[in-house]
């Protein structure tokens, strides 16, 4: 009975994990199968003919994969750096400074969390078009440079930073910016790690916005590149397509594994999930 009680949660969680991981398994499996096997019902991990080399070299040769990756890195890092630079001082002010309108501003931040990017797509597109900024890296980054989610996440985490340390720092001669960056953010590194993962994953995988503002293959980030790739080059070559998908998923996986410990701490600490 006790054994059952112990095992049941694990069984449920394992089932959930399988549901989540299965598409990835399928992707990797397809990427090493030959075209003839792609539609087999069997999910046996060893394909009859091992076509990984062919699929991956095709994915790497037929499309400028390196270019897509570089575009993805530029866009994601650009967004992340600006988000952190703007959100950290804003969150510090909302969490630790007293000024009139603070509550109102905080409510606005939370309200803004509810506005989806799709709602703003048209005005943003028109604005970028009028400014002649379509087909630039800037166009891909612009809507995301200020992140209310980041402000909210950092606010939750900064709030628990002890006030007395901040006061001691004020007496010691720290400026408010030094307190914000050198002490408070320093105490919230797990949140920074968590946000980094959230932001990188979201924008690395984003297809919607780049598709709207970029039509130049040279600027395409990986998912958009894959879309061009799927349409034009490969047609129905699912093996190569999945090889490409595996290649662009891998960096995110590595990024997550590197900061996994902090990421989990950051999420449990701030109550965001």
């Amino acid at each position, binding site marked *: 009975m006790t054994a059952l009680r112990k095992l049941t949660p694990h069984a449920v969680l394992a089932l959930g994990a399988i549901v989540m991981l299965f598409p990835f398994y399928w992707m990797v499996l397809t990427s090493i199968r030959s075209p003839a096997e792609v539609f087999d019902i069997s999910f046996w991990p060893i394909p009859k003919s091992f076509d990984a080399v062919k699929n991956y070299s095709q994915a790497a040769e037929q499309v400028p994969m390196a270019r897509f990756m570089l575009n993805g890195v530029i866009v994601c890092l650009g967004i992340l750096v600006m988000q952190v630079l703007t959100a950290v001082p804003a969150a510090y002010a909302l969490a630790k400074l007293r000024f009139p309108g603070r509550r109102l501003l905080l409510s606005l931040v939370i309200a803004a969390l509810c506005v989806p990017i799709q709602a703003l797509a048209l005005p943003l597109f028109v604005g970028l078009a009028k400014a002649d900024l379509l087909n630039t890296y800037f166009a891909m980054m612009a809507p995301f440079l200020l992140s209310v989610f980041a402000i909210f996440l950092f606010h939750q985490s900064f709030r628990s930073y*002890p006030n*007395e340390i901040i006061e001691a720092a*004020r*007496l*010691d*001669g720290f400026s408010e910016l*030094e307190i914000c960056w050198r002490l408070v953010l320093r105490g919230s590194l797990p949140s920074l790690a968590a946000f980094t993962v959230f932001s990188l994953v979201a924008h690395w995988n984003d297809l919607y916005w780049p598709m709207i503002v970029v039509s130049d293959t040279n600027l395409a980030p990986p998912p958009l590149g894959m879309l061009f790739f799927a349409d034009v080059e490969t047609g129905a070559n699912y093996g190569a397509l999945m090889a490409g998908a595996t290649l662009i998923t891998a960096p995110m996986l590595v990024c997550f594994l590197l900061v996994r410990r902090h990421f989990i701490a950051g999420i449990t600490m701030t109550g965001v999930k």
Partner: protein
Amino acid sequence: MSSQAIDLRNIRKRFGPDEVLKGIDLSIRPGEFLSLVGMSGCGKSTLLRIIAGLESPDQGAVAIGGGEVTTVDPSDRNLAMVFQSYALYPHMSVRENIATPLRMRRLPMSARLPVVGGLFGTSKIRNAITEDVERAAGMLQIGHLLDRKPSQLSGGQRQRVALARAIVRSPAAFLMDEPLSNLDAKLRAHMREELVALHRRLGATFVYVTHDQIEALTMSDRIALMSEGRIEQLGTPDELYRQPATLTVARFIGSPSINLLPVDVDSAGEISAYGQALGLRSTGDSGPATLGLRSEDLFIATEGLSLHQGIAVKVLRSETHGADRYMTCQLLADPTVRVTVRQTATAKPGVATDGTVHLGFHAERAHLFGANDLRRPLTARERVLA
């Protein structure tokens, strides 16, 4: 430079609808150990934070060493503060924690940057800082802990680091906000002595906030007892204990707390309790008043003194605390009033629980408070025993 006077003029502060400080005037002498003491919520911490510059008063002026600083930033007031939670920088070693106030003061902004800061030619300043840090650490006997992180230290050690961080910069005054509250009883008593020794050694102005009247009584040169945003009484520990200016002060100071008897003052100034004359007189208005008697000023009236008219009480409980014995008694005239009598443990007679005795008191040490809670003059007739 380490002992400056602090002058507060008519400080008022309001948080929302609550007026926390209702016009505080206080002159703290250079080199003095002054305690701000009172119940939680009396405004003592707010007052300290106003001195530090962490809060700004709605009205009034703060002056340090004669110069007005009401609108000066905390860091430019040259004050050091020690917090209840120690407030050490968690990611820095003890050495860096103690060095921080000096680094912030002596090094230019560019040299304080992480990584590249070391490239600026400031090694002379850095060496001086290292020396000062080691001197401060030596004074508090934490030299061997310099390379640890605060999380690796015990509460007492953290408190020493916080003190070292305060003394390292030779401030105009030290502000301490309940610095011993997080320590266990034994360590607290020990740190109390050390703080007094440190004060004597530095000769610096100390402003010490505490809710613990024992700390205030044992450490201070003077005490400012606060209640509901006002200073009730400012004086030496002896004055507060022996001449409490108000009923609030009498209630707050002393352990066990003072015994209070409801009394009446008649038109002739004669004082009586429950219709029984006590042999005390007062001048001024007649009407109800409160008589305050410290537990050590009460005694059991022995037969020899033939005091059939002392205060009749029933003994409820008798506890021996080493050298002293505390007897909790209930007035026969009014069972809701309880009094505590302190005797030496060897004193005779030891009274059995539930026994009835008559209590006398030392009239010259009795305190009378009027209906407005203020101290009233009191004179004893020739016979001091009731």
